[in-house]
């Protein structure tokens, strides 16, 4: 009895151990190849280190905000306002969006969305909020941190939406019936539903952050590639795009490859810390 139980315990633990092992394996690889850069202090001296960490965080945070706003709005729209027949249309649109190669978003952002965004959003921001450091750069060019964050946000919206929508759909009908039976209107009902699925919303947030901070191709196309502590309206640089851009000279520049590996390690750690931090927030909220 107890033997069979412990055997079944082992079988339950296997998937967990395998995925943990995989994470550890990649961690070890990254650490191994970044050791030279870290111990010699080359990473600390590398001028791109801090600005690119900053850039990556900046665009990912914008992306998460955009993705959360869009996915919650889409969820409410689909579940509360659209007739069943349109629901299927919108759902398949969202699915298609998720399947697009990300370079398409890059091209679209540069050629179509970017110029409009610069003229109608970034310029007014600069004009009216230019006294703030974040908007202090005149957006003459299309690539910018803000544009990159917004397009990233659109790109990860389908993933956040699928998590949040699924949760919204499975809220017990008694919640709606309770609210209706008290005389509640649509807005109160929506609010209570969103409260009910707040964990899924945080899950969607985690997922979007993870996807946004790791995205490479679209970011490399849209961000501009300028390494500095950029204002939102200026071209900027992020870790993954820096890595692909610098590979061209990394093989002939001593120590650079190791620096870039160390930056990849940092990206990995930021993702993990964000994930754990959010788990902690959930724990805290439960108490």
């Amino acid at each position, binding site marked *: 009895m107890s033997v069979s139980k412990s055997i079944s315990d082992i079988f339950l633990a296997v998937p967990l151990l395998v995925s943990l092992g995989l994470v550890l394996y990649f961690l070890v690889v990254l650490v191994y190849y970044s050791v030279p850069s870290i111990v010699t202090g080359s990473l600390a001296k590398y001028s791109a280190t801090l600005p690119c960490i900053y850039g990556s965080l900046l665009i990912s945070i914008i992306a998460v905000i955009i993705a959360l706003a869009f996915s919650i709005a889409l969820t409410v729209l689909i579940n509360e306002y659209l007739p069943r027949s349109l629901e299927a249309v919108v759902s398949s649109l969202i699915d298609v969006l998720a399947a697009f190669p990300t370079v398409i978003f890059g091209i679209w952002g540069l050629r179509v969305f970017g110029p409009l965004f610069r003229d109608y959003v970034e310029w007014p921001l600069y004009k009216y909020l230019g006294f703030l450091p974040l908007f202090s750069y005149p957006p003459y060019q299309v690539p910018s941190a803000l544009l990159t964050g917004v397009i990233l946000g659109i790109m990860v919206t389908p993933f956040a939406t699928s998590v949040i929508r699924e949760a919204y759909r499975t809220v017990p009908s*008694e919640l*709606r*019936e309770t*609210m209706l*039976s*008290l*005389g*509640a209107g649509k807005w109160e009902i929506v609010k209570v539903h969103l*409260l009910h699925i707040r964990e899924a919303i945080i899950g969607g947030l985690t997922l979007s952050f993870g996807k946004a901070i790791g995205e490479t191709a679209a970011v490399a196309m849209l961000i501009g590639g300028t390494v500095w502590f950029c204002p939102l309206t200026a071209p900027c640089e992020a870790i993954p795009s820096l890595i692909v851009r610098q590979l061209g000279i990394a093989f002939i520049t001593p120590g650079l490859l190791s620096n870039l590996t160390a930056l990849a390690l940092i990206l990995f750690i930021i993702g993990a810390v964000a994930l754990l931090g959010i788990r902690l927030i959930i724990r805290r909220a439960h108490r």
Partner: protein
Amino acid sequence: MYNTYDITIFKGASRVLLGVIEDSLFTIENLNVWYRQKNRIVHALKDVTVKIPARKLTVIIGRSGSGKSTFLRTLNRVVEMYNAKISGKILYKGQNIFKMNPQVLRSRVVMVLQRPIALPMSIYDNIAYPLKSIKKVKDKREIDRKVEEALRLANLWNEVKDRLHHPATQLSGGQIQRLAIARAIALDPEVLLLDEPTAHLDPESTRYIESTILKLREKVDIVFVTHSIEQARRLAEYVIYFEDGKVIEEGEAEEVLERPKTERLRRFLSVFEREPEEAEVIV
């Protein structure tokens, strides 16, 4: 026994004009309700014609699946959220409910569900949030007062007064039931529809809720569903018996419960007369 209403001349006149209608809270005529599901249709209420009198505690009895909950849900039009098809007429105080704004109707005719749930917020907010957002009560002290009063009436105050700001989802089933009753009471509705409000409660809480119901009926019209004939005997002034989606018998409680006219109701009531042992053997 009856409330004394301040009868203005106008009200007096309208009462004379409306005559019979004034004395009935709900007038239901030829009501049919179908639940439309993907591949089948459930005919839940069949040609129901019945009156629910005003200022009388009305109790609805009947077997499981006989349409009692559906009937309550139709009175406040919540049934519409279940993709239901409805035909027939329902007047609430003389007004056609299907021509009323459903939200207005529901804030006057408040229902406590058979499977009550806690809203995903604190115990306090479970009562305060509907007050604030639906009843538009703004004053904090007024809200505090109502929360306490409602929790006391539902016999929950003593258990939760030290943890009002903890999540309500941590409460037990019986506590959530009482919380749901408190939530409804706090809204000061004209009518309270209670769907088996004591189903998850122990005898003590049941008695307490019953005394609250008796207290409330001075101000509020109450319609409630119960499985317990004993409870119906203790509380009911008017009884409606449902079977298979139809109203089989209705009338003054004593008449219906003690001298049933139909064979079907007699059979239903006789189940409760048997000795417990015998009933167990049958099960």
